[in-house]
């Protein structure tokens, strides 16, 4: 904040009462001070922007521009073999989505795979975090092990799962036949294939979420547990009435992140049926939206159609985001 000089008395030279000082020195000094302070002000005001600018410049180039260009392409009929050769199609690419069975099949699959991968994953992560929160021997070791699946590449993990889930020579069917369950065709039947794809997701992300929960649990003040124990709450009651309410924001965060992740699911189903490319199984039984988008854009080379699918997915994600926000507000108000 600069001081407002006009409220003070004007100096003698201007017929005022303020003490006079030698002009020359004061002028230069004042100019320098003013210049410095101007510089300093500018510095304070603009530096933060300069510091964050690299990210935003890159975001504009690699995030915003592609987003808008995709929107523009989605209004055209355009093929990947000649991306500059665009024919105006208006909203045709969007209207056709409404009666595109393959799109809705993919949307349904994305939803079901999302549910059967996210719910068990977060529940298991919570349980694991709770166990790891106790005093354990070699707790660091276990915590590192939990992150191992997250560190493996999707492709490598999926390939191993493909072998495990093999119909004739897979280890899982071999184990099941001891229990008396016959051969399950994990890749070609609808529910088994979706469960198999979900299991890859669960395997990869459970440890990651468990660590997030664990971090949040360690931030819960110890005296809450002590007072709960004094009130005669057992371990379970402590978990339900102290830990879970304290973890609410974290749980919400993981739900949002997992939902977004689930709606963009791509690598696992793609690798799960390596040779059927992006069709997600013989009857598209585990083709997710991400996979369908990829198939239209990169396999069939219909850039316009793929762009419309991308934007539709984007809008769906925004809706999911709003729903998430509303639910979290409700929860906060009720909490």
């Amino acid at each position: 904040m600069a001081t407002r000089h006009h409220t003070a008395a004007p100096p003698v030279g201007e017929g005022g009462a303020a003490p006079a000082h030698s002009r020359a020195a004061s002028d230069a000094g004042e100019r320098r001070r003013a210049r410095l302070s101007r510089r300093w002000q500018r510095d304070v005001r603009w530096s933060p922007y300069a510091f964050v600018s690299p990210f935003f410049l890159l975001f504009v180039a690699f995030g915003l521009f592609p987003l808008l260009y995709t929107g523009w392409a989605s209004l055209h009929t355009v093929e990947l073999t000649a991306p500059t050769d665009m024919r105006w199609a208006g909203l045709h690419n969007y209207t056709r989505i409404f009666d595109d069975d393959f799109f809705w099949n993919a949307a349904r699959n994305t939803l079901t795979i999302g549910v059967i991968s996210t719910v068990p994953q977060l529940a298991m992560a919570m349980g694991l975090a709770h166990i790891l929160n106790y005093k354990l021997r070699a707790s660091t070791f276990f915590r590192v092990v939990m992150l191992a699946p997250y560190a493996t590449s999707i492709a490598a993990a999926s390939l191993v799962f493909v072998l495990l889930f093999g119909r004739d020579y897979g280890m899982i069917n071999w184990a099941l036949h001891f229990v008396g369950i016959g051969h399950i065709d994990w890749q070609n039947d609808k529910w088994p294939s979706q469960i198999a794809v979900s299991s890859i997701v669960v395997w990869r992300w459970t440890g990651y979420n468990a660590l997030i929960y664990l971090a949040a649990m360690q931030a819960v003040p110890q005296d809450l547990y002590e007072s709960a124990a004094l009130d005669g709450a057992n371990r379970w009651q402590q978990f339900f009435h102290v830990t879970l309410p304290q973890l609410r924001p974290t749980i919400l965060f993981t739900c949002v992140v997992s939902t977004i992740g689930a709606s963009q699911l791509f690598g696992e189903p793609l690798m799960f049926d390596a040779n059927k490319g992006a069709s997600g199984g013989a009857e598209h039984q585990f083709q997710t939206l991400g996979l369908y988008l990829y198939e239209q854009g990169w396999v069939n080379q219909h850039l316009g159609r793929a762009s419309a699918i991308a934007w539709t997915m984007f809008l769906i994600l925004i809706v999911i985001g709003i729903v998430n926000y509303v639910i979290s507000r409700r929860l906060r108000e009720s909490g």
Partner: protein
Amino acid sequence: MRTSIHRSRRLGALAAVAALTTGLLTGCAKDSGGKSDTSDGGGKGSTTITLGLFGTMGFKEAGLYTEYEKLHPNITIKENVIEKNENYYPALVNHLTTNSGLQDVQAVEVGNIAEVVQTQAGKLEDLSKVQGVDKGSWLGWKWQQATTASGQTVGLGTDIGPMAICYRKDLFKAAGLPTDRDQVGKLWAGDWSKLVSVGEQYQKKAPKGTTFMDTPGGLLNAILSSQSQKFYDSSGKVVYKTNPAVKQAFDLTAKAAQEGLLQAQTQFQPAWDQLISNVKFASVACPPWMLGYIKGKSKADAAGQWDVAQAPQAGNWGGTFLTVPKSGKNVTEAEKFVTWLTAPAQQARLFAVQGSFPSAPSAYGMSQVTGAKNEMTGDAPIGTIFAQAAKSIPLQPIGPKDQIIQQGLTDNGVFLVTKGKSAADAWNTATKTIDNNLEQ
């Protein structure tokens, strides 16, 4: 809690910046300018020719680069290889449409050549005009596949995949079928439905758990490849639904699947590899390169158990072309090199090392081809057998979306018959999928 959120946000932003920056750095493809041929012969390797390839094409392994560098001391040759064509090809199309990131020589798989001919010919050199290129050196259909309607040849053929039927002698014998390759070939000569009849015979006395042939996809591909018309007519119109040959091939394959002559698997998947190592099928439609694949997946005791008989009608499966993009840095040198690399003598050497079958008929008389043997097939003169098949491959119009149509008919079609769908239902599922994939 608050601080941790801020922290994580900052970390997230940092991570994003880091990711984006690395993307920026690695994504900088060098823009290649126009022609700038500097063959001043100033010391070794003053000109570097780069090749963009996919899979294992074997030029390097066959020592062809070293030899060319010996013949031309001013040339150095480098290759950039991408493992899978399904990753290589979209990138190539991108590079062609944006005129950046192209190598001096780019390989194109036969499944993509029609699309390249129709959509990218303007970006590629006409190789028929290059000195030393003689149209007569190649099989007619091979030359034709890379030639536009206006007569521009965008790529020179390297190898082809003439198809025969590879079969396990021990399984055939156990099922009471002849094992001599000429007799076996006679059983089904000229007619695919005869092959299915032989399969029915086989299945009656088949060793437990084995099937006559490997997969619905393999059989369908063999039948379709041997037709004079497949999914496109000669004017370039899509006719897959109206061409009776396609429907017949589909129905015959579906019949074989219903009768249990085929394994319910997809080729080249891990489960199919296990079928090979566990000897679960007696025959497979195979180009020469398939023998190499079988060898890689077999147990040691499979050596010499296989033999090769002529197919009812020969078709082609696989093969590659080399193209020279106009925007390359060393167009003239690249053209010279490609001409040399695809000449019959070099093709024959490639076959000896890599098993890639020559597309130049004059190579068929060379000792590398006539004397070729394969570990899997013992003493069978495979070079001569496949050369015979190569000469009877029909001139079939190919189209830009051949692969998508065939994949639909296979994976979303005949494959479903092995899962208990009726042939009619499978056909409907396939056509619905294909039509959706073709619609722009």
